[in-house]
């Protein structure tokens, strides 16, 4: 786990969680990306990826898997939010998209003893030591579908606005930490090879999903393979996207309103669409 990196500009050490070199001021230090880019992480992921490819070849699924990998290269990050939240974001390019921890700081509290909150904080502490408050979460999508339990508006993000500061993770990180029995310690026993930089997200998807692809898999099935909403949240299957730092309406590429509601919310959705259009964000 990186606790400091060498500044490419001045060659001095940059400690976590600072976003810019404290010595020369070089900006753009995104620790989730640095961690995903760690040599051991990448090597382990590469081994998983090659093993998946070999396995697919042995099953005569290498061609579909390669096609899947090619398609995944065009995947995007998607966030689901309520109409009200999207209206707020759409109202001005100065409205920021908050994080879970900012919500907590603002006074939002889940009931005492909520195991999920504990689990989530545990996972974030392990995955994002000292910088969890900077992280925003999304899911990887091919067609704009998302986890609508979070809200009926699916926000697809512009790749060019996040690719330099986003990383991807095998699955819901909280459940991953629980399943692997990971505890907080100086050196948490966090398995390597389960995260990747944005540019290498296809490798992670291949490593994770190759077993579900065979010679009969059609390209129109890729989207459901990548993201599948289960009966409960624990049954959801998706690649989690970790994005460092703020987002605004200008980070959005498209907003898809699912399950449109009547009356007041219909008016709100009309307003959202009108506002988004002014920011060149598609709405449907």
């Amino acid at each position, binding site marked *: 786990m990186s606790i400091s990196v060498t500044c490419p500009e001045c060659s001095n050490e940059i400690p976590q969680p600072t976003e810019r070199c404290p010595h020369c001021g070089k900006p753009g230090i995104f620790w989730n990306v640095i961690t995903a880019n760690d040599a051991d992480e990448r090597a382990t992921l590469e081994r998983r990826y090659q093993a998946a490819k070999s396995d697919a070849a042995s099953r005569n699924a290498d061609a579909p898997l390669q096609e899947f990998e090619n398609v995944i290269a065009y995947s995007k990050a998607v966030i*689901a*939010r*309520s*109409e*009200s*939240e999207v*209206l707020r974001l759409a*109202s001005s390019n100065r409205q920021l998209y*908050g*994080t*879970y921890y900012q*919500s907590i*700081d*603002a*006074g*939002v*509290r*889940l*009931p005492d003893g*909520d*195991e*999920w*909150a504990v*689990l*989530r904080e545990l996972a974030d502490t392990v995955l994002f030591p000292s910088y969890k408050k900077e992280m925003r979460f999304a899911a990887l999508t091919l067609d704009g579908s998302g*986890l609508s*339990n*979070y*809200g009926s508006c699916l926000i697809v993000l512009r790749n060019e606005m996040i690719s330099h500061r986003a990383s991807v993770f095998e699955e819901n990180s909280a*459940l991953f930490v629980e399943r692997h029995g990971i505890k907080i310690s100086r050196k948490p026993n966090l398995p390597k090879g389960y995260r990747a930089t944005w540019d290498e997200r296809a490798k992670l998807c291949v490593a994770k999903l190759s077993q579900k692809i065979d010679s009969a898999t059609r390209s129109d099935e890729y989207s459901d393979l990548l993201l599948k909403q289960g009966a*409960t*949240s*624990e049954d959801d299957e998706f690649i989690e996207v970790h994005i460092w730092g703020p987002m605004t309406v200008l980070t959005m590429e498209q907003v898809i309103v699912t399950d449109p*509601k009547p*009356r*007041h*919310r219909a*008016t*709100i959705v*009309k*307003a959202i669409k*009108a*506002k988004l259009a*002014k920011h060149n964000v598609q709405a449907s």
Partner: protein
Amino acid sequence: MNAVISGRAGKALLLDGDSLKSFDVDEPSKLVSRRQSDLPYLFGETQDLRFIENTDIESVQQELKHDCDCNWALDLALISLDAELPDEIRKEAIEGLDELLADSRVVERLENILYARALPEDADLAGALNLCGETRFSNAIALLQSFQERQPLIREVSEAWDIIPTKIFGGYDQQAEFQHVAVREGFFRALVITLESQGKASSLREASIHLASANPNDTIPMFLLNTGLNDSVKRLRNHRQVLHAWASPFRQSGNAPKIKPEIEEGDESETSTRRRHGRRIGIHRQAVLREVNKKKAIIIEAIKREDFGLVRGLVDDLVSYQLSNGEPEHAAKSLCDLAIGAKALGIQSLQLALIERSVSIAPDDGWSWAQYGDALLSVLRLDDALKAYQQAEAFGHRMIALTGRAEVLKTKGEFDAALVAFNEIILEYPEDVVSKTGRAEVLKAKWQLDDALTAYNEIIANHPDDPIARNGRSCILAALGRYDEAIEYLPDRNLLTLQDWIGYHIRGMILLRTGKLGGAIQIFNDGVQNTSWPLQREYFRNALAVAWLRGREFEKASKALEGIDSPQLQPAANVLRLHAFGAQGNLKRATAAYNSLATSPHLRSNELTQELRHQFLLGEAPRYNEDWIFDQEVKIVLLAA
């Protein structure tokens, strides 16, 4: 059943035992089983979670619907004000808004938010009203018109909030949290409406609005009182200072004397008051102060003569004069001074009346509330006294409020709680002599004689003239049989103050204990008939009962004890009742007296009490003689004093 609801998410979670179920506002009858891990997915990152305890599903449905309505109303209001949006959408929003505003609770919650900040320049309120005119939606029109009319006040209240120094909140995070609570609880709206009602905002300063015409509930003091007692705010750091700092610009600029009644115009030249921009400034404070002091001295003389009709008229004149020439707080302070004078002269009813008037004039004046607590304590309205002290603390007089509270606990006979309270005050205010004497008195009441004597000696070493400490020390010395030391500073004439009468009572007890029965009874009768303090009168009754018991006048002793009602004196009185009724063969009353001591275990287990029980309730042969019993009874009465 408990529930968590979010108007933003439009969802409710029901928690009933181990069961977790949710429903959507659109389908309230469709319950979906949930697990804890579903919660973040259910509510996402909404910031409006609300927890409802001990409820039922119908109530939750209503609450969720209401929260959703409030959220939609806010969204629709913002859409209606947005000039960037097409008129068609804005009209549709106004229509929806109008429908939601039929519920007055939605109006209030919406205004709680909208009144927290002045509208930004690009908000199109006029356009929204025009669209309302076309659509003729009355609820929306009323909301937007009020919003428009109140913009100057909203701006002033918002600016007053912004200039509160961050350090008063404790930091930026605490400031943000406080603002969040203030908006949610409707404090911005309340202050705007208060100012509007009272005509105190700067935009209304030029108007001749008389204070008397304002609703007394719509005053800055009432705003401070109501907000200061809000449970959410009470948990916030420095909440009183924050609220006072917020309201202070309005109090300084808009108090009644400065909003000029017509009748005062002619007086201006005589009081050397100048005007600038219509505001009255430069009051000749020294002249006013001299006049006030003169009036107060005359009133005190009238009180001394017990000419209460004249006192009433003079007090009216003083209050009127001060309200015309200064702040309400000044008039309140004068009334407090007079009340203290009345208390010193033993006229509790007048003390209470003056303080009640003081509190009504300046309900945000902590000192007045503290004096009110003291007056209520004097007349044994103990629960009311506690409330008054709570108010005193709420308005910044913490030390005196805590001391008053501890005194009330002591008067209630809750000695352990009182001792804890006094110890805490001494820790917080180590220089305060009142809390130290209070602590010593509790030790005395608990019969911890050596500890009490040490405590009094320590106080007297630093404050040799403190009458409370000196009386307390004399009391302990008398209980220890050191009569010559005890009587050295005790008065036998010129009894003016409460402490004079307490010292007189101790002198009587010493006379009684040293066999000077006639002199003792004279003192006690004098006290019963002539002291003005109701509680002190009861102390003399207790002492008189001991004297009658000593003379085997049991019926007279019983009668003397009949008039003792104060909780503080009941334990000692019940020991004496056990003796008086037991000796008369009235076992029912004697048993009742003994049983009443259950709440005072230290006295119930006392050797004297057990001897009286042994003799009179169990009918056993005496184990101690009458001298011993008398000696113990003197001690009980002394230490209850």
